[in-house]
């Protein structure tokens, strides 16, 4: 919000110097504050082609504009950095934004007047960053280094006080495991692709924030009243009771179809990992700040060798898919790994378990041998999985190879990650969903059109199955797009079914940028509860502006272009926005053959179809369809021409 005390704080870990600059009002108006301004900071301050694990990389943290207000579900903070996951054979790295909720962290940053935090350099020895309003300093963290996430979070909260927001890494981040995450306020994970390793490379163990200031809005009465109206609307949602009972443990009925890895019959999966196991394990459902839905879980393992183990976050969906992939029938054993990853090491459970699945299978097939693994037999059993998990965290022996991710398996052993059998890989990252059981809907497309190949923040109605055309259309109309755009989206195209997936995806992504800038959790848009018009009303009441929903989405488009530009500088183009090969291969399962279909299951999507959808996407973006990059005309239209010049690109290179 253009208000006094709205700052960008620069922290140089190498020198320990902290400086602050007021954010220009213009940047706020054009980019909606939050991650929008964050992307501008990335364009201005990130060095092109810098090694992500070197002091040259930066972490740019941006609490959403509305974080700390009473608007339902606005806790999100966005973190932008260059991620250390190898994104291509020639070892390029993408710059991406990841978002996180939480109860304390984002709110504390906004209250401390720290709307953008740009962290650069590398501390000579382990530190944590302590923010107490304007007092920002580096504190020695030798005693925290090597310790687990939950333990360190508790210690920092005890030391810094009960309002403290904490973002922390575990040993995976310290050891520069390329998939390592950061964990915020114990319950929320941040930065798939390796933000944790970037923090580790900077000797930055944690950020502990306290702020005492107000979160003010320009027109308090209008803002408060409309927030109340939105709350009433969410209370009326018929599924709310079920949702607040189970949080992220809800939805097995959808999940078991959309994320089916195709090895066991669904009935067996139901029995081993279904609703029953979830109900038996959930202890508490936790809400992020101002959230009236709540989805974060606190859970406890009952029975078995891990009896009594408690964890935070959401263990169910990930343990169910990886459990089937690895053939582990006791869900408690998989949840035990989730618990360790979230509360202790900070490993990314998805990538870790899938790489383990791939490596052990390759060993079984004789494509990896004892000579490759340092003498270790890679058996397909739980004990081996646990051992590999620990070896990855410590980068011990063969674990060092796996800690570098898919790319290193290819480089050293010629094992192409595109051969992996579930979900697919793009820009070096394994996806969470597979488009064959899920169908090829807009979220699937945004996995490879987005700069960082991850779905976070993009959820809309089409991620769920069996929505009607009317429902999908109503939602897009409520986003507030102009009629001619809506007509384009809903013009039938033979290659993608009843609506145009490429064009839908473009606007969905721009909406996501708006949500991230404001700090709105995408569960609210996923469930069809808060739309573009609503966000415009909130934004206007908060800032005193008078933007229409369409204008707001235009700002979202500007942010998307900023994100792309930063990545063009890193050498990314249409070549990299590739649909995973795997999706075109049918999946043979005990339930029959599954091929990739359109959303309404009317046709099988071919490579040619997917290419046409990608053409549509770039065309809708007004980008060069051949290169998949922003054109000078588009940049001019968005007022970003300065960033298109060759000079800017080489100056930064």
């Amino acid at each position, binding site marked *: 919000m253009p208000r006094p005390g709205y700052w960008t704080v620069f922290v140089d870990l190498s020198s320990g110097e902290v400086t602050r600059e007021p954010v220009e009002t213009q940047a706020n108006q054009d980019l909606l504050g939050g991650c929008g301004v964050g992307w501008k900071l990335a364009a201005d301050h990130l060095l092109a082609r810098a090694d992500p694990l070197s002091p040259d990389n930066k972490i740019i943290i941006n609490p959403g504009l509305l974080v700390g*207000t009473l608007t339902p579900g606005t806790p999100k903070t966005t973190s932008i950095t260059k991620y250390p996951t190898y994104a291509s054979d020639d070892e390029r790295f993408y710059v991406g934004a990841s978002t996180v909720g939480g109860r304390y962290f984002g709110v504390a940053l906004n209250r401390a007047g720290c709307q953008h935090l740009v962290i650069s350099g590398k501390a000579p020895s382990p530190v944590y960053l302590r923010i107490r309003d304007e007092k920002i300093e580096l504190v020695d963290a030798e005693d925290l280094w090597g310790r687990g996430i939950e333990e360190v979070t508790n210690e920092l909260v005890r030391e810094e006080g009960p309002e403290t927001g904490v973002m922390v890494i575990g040993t995976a981040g310290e050891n520069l495991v390329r998939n390592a995450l950061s964990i915020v306020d114990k*319950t929320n994970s941040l930065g798939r692709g390796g933000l944790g390793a970037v923090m580790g490379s900077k000797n930055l163990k944690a950020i502990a924030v306290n702020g005492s200031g107000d979160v003010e809005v320009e027109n308090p009465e209008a803002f408060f009243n409309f927030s109340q109206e939105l709350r009433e609307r969410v209370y009326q949602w018929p599924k709310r009771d079920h949702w607040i009972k189970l949080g992220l443990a809800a939805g097995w009925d959808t999940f078991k179809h959309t994320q089916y890895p195709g090895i066991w019959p669904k009935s067996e999966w139901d029995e081993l990992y279904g609703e029953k196991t979830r109900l038996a394990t959930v202890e508490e459902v936790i809400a992020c700040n101002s959230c009236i839905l709540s989805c974060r879980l606190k859970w406890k393992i009952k029975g078995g060798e891990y009896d009594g183990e408690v964890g935070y976050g959401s263990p169910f969906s990930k343990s169910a898919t990886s459990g089937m992939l690895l053939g582990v029938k006791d869900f408690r054993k998989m949840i035990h790994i989730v618990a360790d990853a979230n509360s202790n090491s900070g490993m990314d459970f998805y990538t870790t378990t899938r790489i383990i699945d791939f490596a052990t299978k390759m060993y079984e097939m004789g494509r990896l041998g004892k000579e490759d693994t340092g003498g270790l037999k890679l058996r397909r059993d739980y004990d081996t999985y646990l051992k590999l998990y620990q070896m990855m965290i410590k980068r011990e022996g063969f674990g060092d190879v796996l800690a570098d991710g898919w790319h290193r398996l290819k480089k050293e052993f010629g094992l192409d990650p595109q051969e992996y059998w579930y979900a697919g890989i793009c820009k070096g990252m394994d996806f969470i969903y597979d488009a064959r059981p899920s169908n090829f809907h807009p979220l699937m497309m945004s996995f490879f059109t987005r700069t960082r190949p991850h779905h976070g923040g993009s959820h809309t109605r089409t991620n769920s199955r069996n929505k009607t055309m009317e429902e999908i259309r109503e939602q897009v109309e409520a986003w507030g797009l102009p009629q001619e755009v809506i007509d384009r989206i809903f013009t039938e195209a033979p290659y993608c079914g009843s609506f145009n997936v490429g064009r839908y995806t473009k606007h969905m992504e721009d909406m996501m940028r708006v949500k991230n800038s404001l700090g709105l959790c995408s569960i609210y848009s996923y469930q069809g509860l808060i739309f573009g018009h609503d966000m415009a009303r909130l934004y206007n009441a908060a800032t005193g502006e008078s933007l229409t929903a369409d204008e707001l989405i235009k700002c979202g488009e500007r942010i998307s272009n900023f994100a792309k530009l930063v990545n063009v500088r890193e050498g990314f183009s249409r070549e990299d926005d590739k649909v995973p090969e795997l999706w075109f291969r049918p999946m043979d399962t005990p339930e029959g053959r599954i091929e990739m279909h359109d959303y309404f299951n009317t046709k099988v999507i071919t490579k040619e179809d997917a290419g046409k959808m990608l053409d549509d996407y770039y065309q809708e973006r007004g980008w060069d369809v051949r290169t998949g990059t922003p054109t000078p005309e588009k940049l001019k239209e968005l007022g970003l021409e300065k960033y298109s010049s060759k000079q800017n690109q080489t100056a930064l290179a």
Partner: protein
Amino acid sequence: MRIEGIVIIPSMCRGCRSCQLACSYVRHGVFNPAKSVIVMDREVETDHTVPVILPLSCDLCGGNPACLRACPYGAIVANTEHTSYKILVQT
């Protein structure tokens, strides 16, 4: 109906802090938990939270408690029986 007393049900609290934000808004027109008359008791190990309303500063919003209206999870409810107590905590 005028509400004469509040009951806090600690086990229902999910830590969303809507109560604090609503309280600071009705009292000061800003969002700031520190300007509400509710202190959030955060149990560090379990991460459970319980709102503690400061009875001397709370005026029950003149009979229409904003915190109660804002609580999405039924952790702050109206006291319909013990009207002589302004704030009760269910144990």
